[in-house]
């Protein structure tokens, strides 16, 4: 008698049993609610980015959670610039005032090292969240969730840089003919930076001063992300993995900075001072044919949600219906910033806090949250990109979601090391020096030297280990 005969039967019945079990199983959201009911009457405090972002827990998810479980949600709004500091200060002082946190993934190594974040694996297993975690879009799932193989946060925001362009301008027959005559190439959305420079210059020559080829938010904090993206897309590496010496001053780095500076010539005058809103206004008012930014631009350009009172500060879109969506040149968009939901290690109510974030991040609830008209949370789960509800929001929503999904497959992760802010600060200063007219090579040489000094202070071996595990992630460097 061979047991092997029983194996197919055993497997089949196990599968049948499993299928039956999952047919009866609750969703992660429901499970979270059910488990949380025993904490009814308590309050959990969550730190959230102030302004538009916190309208989600204030107006939607907080009240809903209270209704379902009886747990009060207290939202502590903090400006992005101060979030890291407040979290660290609370942790270091032993005040234990926060239960759940919003954390930018680039901060995770620092916070995890300091011990401020709770390791979430035990809770994920206890409350059965592994499956739904798997369904987060790969780039976010594989890059923004873990440090050293342990889960510290749930990626909750599909921040990615998309290119937005004016379909009508690119589709104009006259312009197409002229461009073809001039360069021999077709006028289409650029897929390389060289194309971008060519197209941008051409459009400005033809259409300025009413419309310029492109504009970007050139203020240092934003341009820093764009530099990180473009540098890697052109083949650059931040460090030499063996020696941990900074290599941002390679020829590629210099070429990127030079190109960025030269591009300003065909952009609206004063583009060096453009921030998020100035760039948005310029695009929505029809002054630029191309731009790169976070996903909200795409929704607001289409007029989605801009009737909401809270979005009344968004300039009226004059280009609804004329906006196309694509990946930025190079095809590997930066997953700039982003947010993850975490639990504070000093929380006095860890299970309740955890259950809240599981619920927020679950398939059902997150789908509703990313569709809120005033939401700044962008689609980040596979199901978001194909949701029929979302697709029906505006005529081009399909193209929009498709582009976001493409981005989520090929996106590049922000540099994330120990004391990332110090490295980022050097880059920000480098950008500001670029706009001030300094020489790109000199700027990058200084920046590389400063990076080396920071690495030396932190400890080369320590940083090398962290960089090594960052560089091993799928979104660290594009597969060339």
């Amino acid at each position, binding site marked *: 008698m061979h047991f092997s005969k029983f194996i197919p039967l055993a497997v089949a019945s196990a599968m049948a049993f499993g299928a039956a079990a999952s047919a009866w199983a609750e969703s992660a959201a429901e499970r979270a609610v059910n488990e949380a009911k025993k904490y009814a009457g308590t309050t959990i405090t969550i730190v959230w980015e102030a302004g538009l972002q916190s309208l989600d827990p204030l107006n939607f998810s907080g009240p809903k959670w209270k209704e379902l479980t009886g747990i009060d949600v207290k939202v502590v709004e903090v400006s992005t610039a101060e979030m890291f*500091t407040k979290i660290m200060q609370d942790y270091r002082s032993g005040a234990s005032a926060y239960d759940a946190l919003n954390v930018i993934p680039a901060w995770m190594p620092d916070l995890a090292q300091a011990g401020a974040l709770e390791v979430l694996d035990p809770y994920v297993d206890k409350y059965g969240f592994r499956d739904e975690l798997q369904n987060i879009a790969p780039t976010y799932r594989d890059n923004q969730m873990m440090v050293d193989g342990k889960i510290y946060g749930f990626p909750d925001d599909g921040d990615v840089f998309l290119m937005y362009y004016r379909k009508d301008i690119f589709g104009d027959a006259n312009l197409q003919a002229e461009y073809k005559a001039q360069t021999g190439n077709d006028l289409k959305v650029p897929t390389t930076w060289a194309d971008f420079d060519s197209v941008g210059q051409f459009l400005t020559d033809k259409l300025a001063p009413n419309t310029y080829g492109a504009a970007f938010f050139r203020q240092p904090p934003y341009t820093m992300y764009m530099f990180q993206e473009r540098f890697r897309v052109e083949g650059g590496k931040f460090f030499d993995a063996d020696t941990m010496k900074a290599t941002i001053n390679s020829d590629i780095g210099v070429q990127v900075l030079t190109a960025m500076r030269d591009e300003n010539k065909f952009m609206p005058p004063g583009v060096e001072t453009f921030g998020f809103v100035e760039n948005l206004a310029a695009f929505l008012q029809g002054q630029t044919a191309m731009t790169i930014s976070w996903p909200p631009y795409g929704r607001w350009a289409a007029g989605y949600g801009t009737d909401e009172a809270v979005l009344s500060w968004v300039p009226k879109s004059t280009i609804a219906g004329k906006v196309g969506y694509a990946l930025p040149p190079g095809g590997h968009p930066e997953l700039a910033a982003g947010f993850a939901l975490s639990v504070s290690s000093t929380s006095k109510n860890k299970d309740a806090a955890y259950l809240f974030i599981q619920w927020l991040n679950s398939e059902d609830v997150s789908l509703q949250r990313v569709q809120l008209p005033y939401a700044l949370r962008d689609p980040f789960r596979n199901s978001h990109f194909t949701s029929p509800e979302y697709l029906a929001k505006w005529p081009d929503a399909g193209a929009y979601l498709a582009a976001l999904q493409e981005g989520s497959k090929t996106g590049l992760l922000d540099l994330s090391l120990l004391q990332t802010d110090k490295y980022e600060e050097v880059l920000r200063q480098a950008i500001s020096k670029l*706009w001030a007219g300094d020489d790109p090579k000199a700027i990058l040489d200084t920046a590389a030297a400063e990076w080396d000094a920071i690495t030396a202070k932190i400890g080369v071996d320590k940083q090398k280990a962290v960089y090594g595990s960052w560089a091993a992630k799928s979104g660290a460097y594009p597969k060339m």
Partner: protein
Amino acid sequence: MTDTATFDGNGHRALAGRQPDWSFRYWIIAPAILLMLAIGLFPLIYALIVSFQGLTMLDDDTSFQGFANYAQLFKDLRLWQSLAHTLLITVIALPVELVLGLAMAYLFLERLPGRQLFVSLLVMPCVISPIVAGATWRLMFDNRYGPINQILGWFAGHPVPALWTVNPKLVYPAIVFCEIWQWTPFMFLILLAALSNVDKSQLEAAEIDGAGFWRVFRRIVLPAIWPVMAVALLIRGLDLVRIFDIIWALTSGGPGTMTETISIYTYVQGFRQFEVSYTAAMAFLVIVILTVIVIAVIRRTGLVK
């Protein structure tokens, strides 16, 4: 029992009186001192101790590091540059604020229809939160959306694409201008109050003697307003050393670290990057430098008799 009167060089004297008042003088200042001690003492001691330790974002190491942090200060070029930037701004803005404030105080000294309105309006720049003021100036200096370049364009007859927050030649003028705009009203109001207290009988006597404006100013007005003026200068000077919001809103210390003042550098190091011990050492260095300057100023000008 009465106090014996004591005189100082300027002819001022301590208050004479009928009763022993040794307790009065202490009672009336005690609450103030106690409050300042209660809030001020612990942080000072904490910062002092911490400056000798090795606390950073990652390191909770409270072991004694000796003078390592202080030694680091002297090698830190960026620190000394930030002090130079701070000095530059202070040395330019302070005299301008004084002279302009004094002139304005003279302007409003006599009756003027609607003076109440004027003075209330003129105080407005200080009342707007400095953060908001900085952001407003940032918008006003904007090349596209702000009125400054628009106005310049009217005068010049052609568009003036001056990038005030980015161009290295323009950032300091922009910052100094905003600072003077915001705090000249401070000097103005204080000097107005001081000028209003000048002894009228002395002025009348001088007028009868036929003295000219500058003579009267130097001999009568200036000595009279000097106590208040000197303190205003001292306070304003100390505040200028701590200048932060306007610069942060306009340039964030940029381009590069060109407009980084000591406050911005301390903020970036201590607040954003959690170099707790190093920041504490920096703070003490600043206090020592300022104390030396203040004591020198006080002795020279006889502010404390």
